[in-house]
């Protein structure tokens, strides 16, 4: 019997040197560096910022940078720098939440649909095709429109549409891996469906999902800040970068910094995410050949 060795043993796509080779490429290293700094700032932020990001002090509004206020104050006297750092927490927190929810929903559905197949699969795909045809933006409009603009509603609407992409990717991988010998071998050996899914198929889907997620983080951050800018997401008092841009708009003629800093912050985070995802994709693509 002629057996293709590569399908008898499970291939392990991500290994330790993935990370090392990723850091060798200058652009990816740059992206990782920036993101690391931002995450660091987020974590230690509350301890080092000079002021409370929410404290309103009308007497000190629209001041220029000083020692007390490293980047000046906004129209309500709040320290811009503190708000930026707090905003980092909000932004990263939201995108992390969305990505985690999306993978938590999408992966099981994809695994199940691909592995079990049959009518379950057909039904799910039907549903998915219908809902997936909606751009997440429209759904965001609908949900925030009817249920009121808020950050939670925004996150909800994004999650509701995004999980589909992940389910699809996972499903297609499962479909192709399902027939390989190592899966059959595991089943013959008596492994339960659960074990097969968890220990054999799951590692295969991790790298594509990671690449997809890295790509999506940037997009999610942009959508959230765009909708917050419109006032449909984070509400004005919350220290979120998009909302801060919205706040700064009336003053852009006199104090353009109000709108420049949050924008730069958004761009930095998204650029670093994109650089990392490009690097990841390059590495994993090369590896799979």
């Amino acid at each position, binding site marked *: 019997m002629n057996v293709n060795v590569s399908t008898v043993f499970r291939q392990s796509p991500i290994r330790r040197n993935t990370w090392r080779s990723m850091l060798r490429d200058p652009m990816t290293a740059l992206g990782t560096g920036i993101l690391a700094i931002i995450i660091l700032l987020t974590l230690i932020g509350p301890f080092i910022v000079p002021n409370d990001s929410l404290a309103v002090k009308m007497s000190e509004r629209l001041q220029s940078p000083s020692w007390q206020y490293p980047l000046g104050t906004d129209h309500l006297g709040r320290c811009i720098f503190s708000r930026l750092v707090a905003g980092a927490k909000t932004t990263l927190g939201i995108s992390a939440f969305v990505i985690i929810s999306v993978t938590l929903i999408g992966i099981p559905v994809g695994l199940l649909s691909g592995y079990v197949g049959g009518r379950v699969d057909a039904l799910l795909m039907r549903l998915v*095709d*219908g*809902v997936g*045809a*909606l*751009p*997440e*933006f*429209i*759904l965001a*409009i*609908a*949900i*925030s*429109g*009817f*249920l*009121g*603009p808020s950050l939670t509603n925004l996150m909800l609407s994004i999650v509701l549409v995004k999980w589909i992409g992940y389910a699809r990717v996972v499903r297609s991988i499962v479909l192709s891996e399902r027939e390989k010998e190592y899966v059959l071998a595991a089943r013959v050996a008596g492994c339960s469906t659960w074990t097969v899914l968890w220990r054999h198929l799951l590692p295969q889907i991790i790298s594509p999902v990671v690449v997809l997620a890295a790509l999506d983080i*940037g997009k999610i951050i*942009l*959508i959230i*800040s*765009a909708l917050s*800018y*419109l*006032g*449909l997401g984070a509400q004005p008092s919350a220290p979120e970068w*998009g909302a801060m*841009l919205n706040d700064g*708009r009336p003053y*852009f*003629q006199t104090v*353009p910094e109000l*709108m*420049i800093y*949050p*924008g730069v912050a*958004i*761009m930095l985070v*998204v*650029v670093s995410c*994109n*650089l990392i995802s490009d690097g990841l994709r390059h590495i994993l693509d090369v590896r799979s050949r």
Partner: protein
Amino acid sequence: MLKLVKARLLQLVFVLFLLSLLTFTLMKLAPGDPVLRILEVDELAVTQADEAALRKELGFDRPLLVQYGEWMLNVLQLDFGNSYIKEKPVLDEMIARLPTTIQLTVGGLAVMVLIAVPLGLLAAKYPGRWPDHLSRFLALLGASIPSFWMGLLLIYVFAFKLQWLPTMGKGSAQHMILPSVTLGFAMAAVYARLLRAGLLESLSQEYIRAARARGIAEWRILWRHALRAALLPVVTVFGMSIGSLLAGTVVIETLFSWPGLGSMAVEAIFQRDYPVIQGYVLLTGVFVVVVNLLVDLSYGLLDPRIRYGKGELS
């Protein structure tokens, strides 16, 4: 080919059904009582009788399923009800605002094509040189920069500091420039890279070498032989990213105070004007599916192999 059209039409129906269900459910779930709000807007003293009368008139006292049925019937006849705020038919409002949004979209697409096509062509023709590096840089920028921020920056620089262009509003050709550039830039950057990749792929094909062997001019080869093959992935991505194009119109219309469908939706959200929101959601849903259908049809146009199947002459 016909099969494809049929499948897409089916999808259209399905999507509309889902969307309508969604908006209807959401509307019923929404906090606040629409009846009270309509009456409030009138700023008249509200009596129980008035309330009951309006409720009956709007059909809110009937069972949900019946309400849904009636509403769907109306929708299919293009009657989206009246705006809570303006007391005028939603359809009229949408039709009035449609041309503005179309203008903006066309402008944005024009900017996108004007930037992406030359840049992509140059980057493919001279790989490793400055057009290539420029397109990579711009692609990263375009994918990372928030469009509304770029719009604000452009307004600050060109309208405020340099006073070359108007800050906002709609009107002359000058008013078109900044919004179109803001909308088109991000897309342009991405499509330039996409086009470059597609061109590199098609330029490496054997038939390009054959065309060169026949002595056909290089620019002609690029334009008429290589470009068409490279358009397929571009069109595919375009179909998939129609959502972000819509999102862009909403943001840009709000930013530049253009009275289009996008800004209408945002206003409606703040004013809790549900019929308007419903109308917008349904309209854009239809739009997205139609665009996807056109994308599918364009495959047949771009690649005759799809159009003809693969029949051979004897």
